[in-house]
């Protein structure tokens, strides 16, 4: 067996174990399904262990994947992916300025729909309007996805809400209660878990590319956050009380994202709008919205058929398309 074939069947063993989740898989079942000898299966498990995977082996029950190395390289994320496009090409960096900057460059150079840039650390993570995005090397998740949607540019902003719904599902799957602050921040008990920044290049009637940049506070602990962020930010690990395997969470994000993108492509914005409302942490609350040097205050009533926030101020229903939304008080 040459080296690449060896690596390949090792990935198959890993996928098999990952698929089974918390359950044991017998060596016999694996050797049968994967067409490997039981000795070969054992050898691959040993090799996975050497790479940092923790695999339990119990006589008469088989193998069980207990922990995966806390890295975001294609070796870790790849076997966990069940997507058809998203992340099938994964550009991995130990450190990068901003994953979105790299993804934009790749998009300019012709990257395909679904290519993903992921990094352990960002030195210049970006938020909206030139704000910084905090990076905790090796602790958090930052990735950017190149999309080439079949959408008129006028509808592309819907994708930012699609992404928020998908990310919300991935976070809830990880056992953390989360809601969406319009348009697409994820909050846990009022504190920010994740942000999404989307960039696009388009002509009047055609989208060239969209780069969806996602930052999630995964395993950073409160004490590691900059002081000014502590009152307003949190992480999955803080909310759960234990760390989350980042590769698993990254794969879950991509898979949820693909599901919702597919749904949006097939059924339009309707189901996304309904799902967004269900997951909203914004509707029904008093909000202050600032765009440029203007601001308005009122009750967030709904989002409309294009995703804009409808705010009831004194006697008027204002349609908000961009701006910073602050939640003023509890529901």
């Amino acid at each position, binding site marked *: 067996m040459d080296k690449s074939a060896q690596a390949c069947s090792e990935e198959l063993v890993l996928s098999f174990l990952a698929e089974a989740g918390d359950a044991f898989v017998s060596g016999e079942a694996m050797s049968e399904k994967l067409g490997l000898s039981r000795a070969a299966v054992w050898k691959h498990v040993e090799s996975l262990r050497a790479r940092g995977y923790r695999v339990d082996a119990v006589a008469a029950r088989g193998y069980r994947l207990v922990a995966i190395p806390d890295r975001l390289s294609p070796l870790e994320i790849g076997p966990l992916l069940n997507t058809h496009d998203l992340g099938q090409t994964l550009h991995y960096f130990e450190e990068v300025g901003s994953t979105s900057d790299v993804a934009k460059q790749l998009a300019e150079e012709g990257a395909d729909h679904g290519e993903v840039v992921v990094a352990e650390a960002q030195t210049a993570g970006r938020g909206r*309007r030139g704000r910084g995005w905090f990076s905790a090397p090796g602790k958090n998740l930052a990735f950017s996805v190149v999309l080439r949607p079949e959408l008129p540019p*006028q509808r592309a902003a819907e994708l930012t809400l699609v992404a928020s719904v998908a990310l919300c599902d991935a976070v809830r799957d990880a056992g953390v209660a989360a809601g969406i602050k319009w348009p697409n921040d994820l909050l846990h008990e009022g504190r920010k878990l994740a942000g999404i920044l989307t960039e696009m290049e388009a*002509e009047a*009637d055609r989208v060239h590319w969209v780069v969806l940049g996602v930052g999630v506070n995964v395993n950073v602990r409160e004490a590691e956050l900059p002081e000014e962020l502590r009152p307003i930010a949190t992480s999955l690990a803080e909310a759960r009380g234990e760390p989350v395997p980042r590769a698993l969470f990254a794969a879950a994000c991509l898979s949820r994202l693909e599901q919702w993108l597919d749904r949006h492509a097939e059924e339009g914005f309707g189901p996304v709008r309904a799902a967004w409302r269900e997951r909203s942490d914004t509707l029904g609350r008093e909000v202050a919205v600032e*765009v440029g040097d203007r601001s308005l205050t009122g009750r967030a009533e709904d989002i409309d058929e294009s995703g804009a926030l409808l705010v009831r101020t004194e006697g008027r229903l204002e*349609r908000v398309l961009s701006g910073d939304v602050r939640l003023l008080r509890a529901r």
Partner: protein
Amino acid sequence: MARRVERVQQAEQPVEAGAGPFTLADVKKLVEALEGTDVTSLVWSRSGEKVAIRRGEKAAPVAPLSYVAAPAPLAPLTPVPAPMPAPAAPAAASAASAPSAAVEQKPGVIVTSPFVGTFYRAPSPESPPFVEVGAVIKKGQVLCIVEAMKLMNEIEAEIPGKIAEILVQNATPVEFGEPLFRIEPA
């Protein structure tokens, strides 16, 4: 209230010089005949072919889409005398047909907003604007950002030239098709 330009069916076949019964000279005559009148839209059918002409201010958007419900004032946004609405018109406008003849008379090229959102002249409130009036720009250079729902759309110059005019205030709402810049081609 601004005149609302009536929407008309797009001509099924773009009219080009020498193509079918309509000649470019015919279309020019039609355009001339409309000058000085209040007619904002005309559809002319002949021998199974059709010419549609729309003129006046930029087409009103289908819905009032902006941060504040009040539509952006039209007058300051159309400082370029525009006998024909082609650059500001929705995609339905048949750019290939008659109006292009009149558009070419404008001094320079108008960059319009490809979607509804908020117009930003700089990447962040602290940074200098992407371009100023008088700036010499390259093709593909970023001119501004239009944001909707945290989707940032960098608008690039499609031609090299000089920024002759910036038609919108920073951090204000823009409509689909709204003129943003006037560029004097290099």
